[in-house]
């Protein structure tokens, strides 16, 4: 701290004044937290919407305060906005833009991101996208009903239903703004990693978290541009009278549509060209965090560091070749379907490499089940459970039956939704001490973990069976459908499980804010990790390392090093076996 004060008047010093410090801050740490809290707000919106959906599914005529009875259109609105908030504003925002922004520069020894102003702009652009998305709820007709995938022609024709008028326009505009924001973020991440690694931090010494953020950023850079142009075209179809996605001769609600000549398949191609990389954008950062935590809390080097890196890269590359597996039922050419099916199964290989390396890492380790570790293990568990259904869906013949049933809902919730959320939780419990200087409350964290793990499995596992029993996806009232009656007990069970799981999340939020002010004070390196963020002050000063740049001598996961007095070797330790005892590693005195 003292060092930092010397530089107070220096250009590199922290800015003063509330606005420059907390609103339009250029500090990557503040921006990371801004993203994190934006995601936190979004996850609550998304969760509320899902709760309403679950209630509607078992009590379709229930009277909801302020909303009344949920009509079928309303159900689709809830579904659309739930998916949109969760995918874009939670799974894309928190793991990558939130934690990535905060810890990527620190972990590679940089004072900030490569382009701080751009960084600030990308947060505020995201925020504008968020506001526009929220506005869609309040306009005439309400929010759109076309699902997070925005399939045309439903999304392209304003008269197709309530919410498809102004609400859908706002939805598309918000997504387009979000694309621009993500592009800015992605190029910033990539440049930072390429150019701002401190001396000694070669690419192959980067923590796997950084590798994951790096590849995620590349995916974002290449994918969001395509979604942007799809959004522009859709907007043109709706408002300019063009017809990219609307076929001729369409009759909607009894009137014939003027458009002709477009093709809905084109939308699906453009959307999923972005969409499949997007699911990896959501999950890769979680994989990075899981790798880091499994190694740290098993006190063992990560099993097969290089294989892990190649697997991340492989997933990133292959991820661009498989988008067609979402379109097996769309009337796509069966030849492309065959190719996409093969590529999709190929992507299982790097995924399996990662899974086995995680298991190899914990194998015979001195595993410490602190809350971050629990969530990391939970991540692996969910990734496996969700991933196993992937190869089934990847086969056109099976998918013809399973597509658009709850089987798919179960698949992507486990693997993308809940697994990525577990990654976020793990990262929060792990890095909280560094971000706020205090520990999170451990008993509350453990309770939160067990309730959430059991709760989410209880919600999503039964959905596989429902799907196989042909329970369709995106349908509102099934209570009256005769051939689905035998599923009603399962539906009820799922809704009760959702109640409990959502309630458990309040433990987390309470813990988060309570610990921020009342938690036990943290040391600089409470988990005895080796990476650079644990060498800084707690919380890190404005330019992270106090006007000096660290030098790195070791790979990221040197645990249980024979002969090392601490059993681990910090990356910055100049001695080969870690004789150097970091002096910061003792409790801070309370002021």
């Amino acid at each position, binding site marked *: 701290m003292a060092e930092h004060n010397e530089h107070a008047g220096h250009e590199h010093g922290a800015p003063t004044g509330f606005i420059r410090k907390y609103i339009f801050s250029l500090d990557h740490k503040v921006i990371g937290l801004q993203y994190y809290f934006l995601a936190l707000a979004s996850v609550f919106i998304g969760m509320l919407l899902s709760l309403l959906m679950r209630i509607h599914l078992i009590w379709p005529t229930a009277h909801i305060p302020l909303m009344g009875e949920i009509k079928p259109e309303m159900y689709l609105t809830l579904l659309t906005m739930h998916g949109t908030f969760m995918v874009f504003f939670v799974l894309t925002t928190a793991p990558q833009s939130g934690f990535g922004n905060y810890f990527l520069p620190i972990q590679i020894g940089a004072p900030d991101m490569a382009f701080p102003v751009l960084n600030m702009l990308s947060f505020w652009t995201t925020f504008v996208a968020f506001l526009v998305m929220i506005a869609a709820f309040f306009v005439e007709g309400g929010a759109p009903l076309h699902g997070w995938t925005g399939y045309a022609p439903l999304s392209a024709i304003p008269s197709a239903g309530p919410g498809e008028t102004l609400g859908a326009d706002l939805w598309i505009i918000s997504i387009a703004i979000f694309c621009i924001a993500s592009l800015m973020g992605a190029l910033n991440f990539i440049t930072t990693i390429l150019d701002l690694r401190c001396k000694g931090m070669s690419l192959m010494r980067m923590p796997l978290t950084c590798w994951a953020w790096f590849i995620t950023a590349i995916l974002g850079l290449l994918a969001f541009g*395509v979604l942007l142009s799809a959004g522009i075209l859709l907007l043109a179809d709706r408002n300019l009278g063009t017809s990219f996605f609307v076929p001729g001769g369409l009759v909607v609600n009894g009137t014939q549509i003027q458009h002709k000549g477009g093709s809905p*398949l084109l939308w699906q191609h453009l959307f999923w060209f972005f969409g499949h990389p997007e699911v990896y954008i959501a999950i890769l950062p979680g994989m990075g965090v899981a790798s880091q935590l499994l190694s740290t809390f098993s006190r063992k080097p990560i099993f097969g560091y290089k294989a892990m890196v190649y697997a991340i890269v492989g997933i990133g590359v292959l991820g661009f070749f498989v988008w067609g597996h979402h379109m097996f039922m769309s009337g*796509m050419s069966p030849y492309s379907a065959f190719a996409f099916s093969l590529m999709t199964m190929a992507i299982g290989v790097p995924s399996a490499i990662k899974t086995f390396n995680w298991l190899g890492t914990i194998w015979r380790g001195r595993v410490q089940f602190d809350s971050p570790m629990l969530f990391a293990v939970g991540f692996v568990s969910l990734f496996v459970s969700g991933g196993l259904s992937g190869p089934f869906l990847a086969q056109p013949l099976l998918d013809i039956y399973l597509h658009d049933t709850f089987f798919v809902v179960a698949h992507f919730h486990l693997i993308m939704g809940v697994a990525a959320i577990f990654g976020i939780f793990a990262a929060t419990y792990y890095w909280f001490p560094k971000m706020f200087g205090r520990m999170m409350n451990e008993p509350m964290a453990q309770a939160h973990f067990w309730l959430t793990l059991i709760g989410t499995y209880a919600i999503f596992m039964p959905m596989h069976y429902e799907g196989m029993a042909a329970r369709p996806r995106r349908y509102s009232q099934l209570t009256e459908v005769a051939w689905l009656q035998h599923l009603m007990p399962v539906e009820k069970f799922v809704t009760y499980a959702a109640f409990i799981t959502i309630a458990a999340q309040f433990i987390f939020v309470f813990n988060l804010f309570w610990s921020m002010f009342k938690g036990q004070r943290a040391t600089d390196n409470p988990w005895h990790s080796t990476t650079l963020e644990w060498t800084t002050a707690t919380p890190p000063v404005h330019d992270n390392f106090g006007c000096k740049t660290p030098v790195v001598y070791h790979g990221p996961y040197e645990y249980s090093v024979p002969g090392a007095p601490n059993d681990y070797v910090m990356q910055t330790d100049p001695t080969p076996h870690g004789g150097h005892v970091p002096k910061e590693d003792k409790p801070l005195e309370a002021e």
Partner: protein
Amino acid sequence: MEMTERHQHGEHAEGKATYFYVWGALIVLTVVEIYLAYNRVFPNPLHMLEVLLALSVVKSVLIIGWFMHLKGETIVMKWVLMGSLVMCLLLMFVFFVDAERILKLGTGR
């Protein structure tokens, strides 16, 4: 900062003349394109498309290589940038399989 110095010496050594040659070549290629298209030298639109696109690719190589100085950058940079771009664009050709099918659907062909 040193980086900027080095690159100023390395890349711009070519001098102005080169840029005018490149510009001339681009203009000539454009004139050829206009001539070909306007006189329908290739009656089959597909041939025309292929020729025009080939010429455009040559033009973009000139622009990217000389005007944007990619020629003077490192090998890694060339491969990373152009490789990912070309891969993604090539992938999109998959779309066309379906565009053609639309014409044939329901016609028994």
